[in-house]
């Protein structure tokens, strides 16, 4: 009887260890819905000659996330200000970001 209790304890211990191990692994295994293209003005955002490099920030401090992306053509940087909400971003047009009064243009590749 004592032996059976011990072996039951051992089984429970193994089960717990497996569960703990599993949950640890599960958090590393984030899963994602199929990808969708980000849209602007009803069309997929497609930067000129490719090489999109997205970053997200509330650029104008209105409490809503905006989108900034690099592009290959002329090494320019596009800013899409969010016309929707923070939880449901909506984009229309973009502007090329300026620095020192001129459009930023970096060697691209």
């Amino acid at each position, binding site marked *: 009887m004592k032996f059976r209790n011990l072996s039951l304890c051992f089984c429970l211990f193994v089960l717990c260890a497996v569960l703990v191990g599993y949950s640890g692994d599960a958090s590393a295994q984030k899963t*994602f819905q199929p990808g969708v*293209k*980000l849209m602007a003005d009803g069309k997929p955002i497609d930067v000129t000659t490719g090489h999109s490099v997205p970053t997200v920030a509330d650029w104008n401090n209105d409490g809503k996330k905006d989108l*900034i992306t*690099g592009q290959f053509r002329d090494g320019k940087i596009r800013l899409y200000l969010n016309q929707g909400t923070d*939880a449901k971003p909506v984009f229309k047009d973009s502007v090329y*970001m*300026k620095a020192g009064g001129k459009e930023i243009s970096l060697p691209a*590749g």
Partner: protein
Amino acid sequence: MDWNNDGIKDLISGDTNGRVWIFMNTGTKEKPVLAEGVQLKAAGKIVINGSHELAGPYSKIHYADWDGDGLNNLLIGQLSNIVFYKNVGNKSEPEFVDPVELTNTGGSFPDRSSPYVIDWDEDGKKDMIIGTENGNIFFYKNIGTVKSPKLSEAKEIKLESEEFAKSYRHRLEITDWNNDGKIDLLVGERYAQEKRGYIWLFLGK
């Protein structure tokens, strides 16, 4: 990204020659105005391909506290490696020393990596997620400590979408896009046949 911790956002960008451009915001929170770009220096020299032993081309910049000392560091994905520039300055005046190459227990990182630092498995330590030239996205678990990170070998993060599979040169942003408390991925891309560059959104399940 707030480079100098003055409460208003600045902009940084890499370029094909491996430079790091800093555009300081001289405006306000609501109306940012960027000053002309300044090229980053490390150990007294402008960072560009070949300027430092490990400085290479095609810089993809990530500005984050990698070594847990409260200061943001620069992690730069280059042609064939990821380098780490330690910030030895302070919060308002970042200052950088010679870079060191980051490694993982599987060896080096893929070409043209796009590094992103985040506590992916929520164990209190920052891990690394990277986008790659070939289009795989990898998770590298931090098996070291907060102050002395050590990365495990790569584990692929499976992302699906028919057209997405053809794209490459993936550049990552990680954020909670729809404010549902789950991490989402934004992936920039290149697809030469159509010279396109969509931005893909993968919402966390």
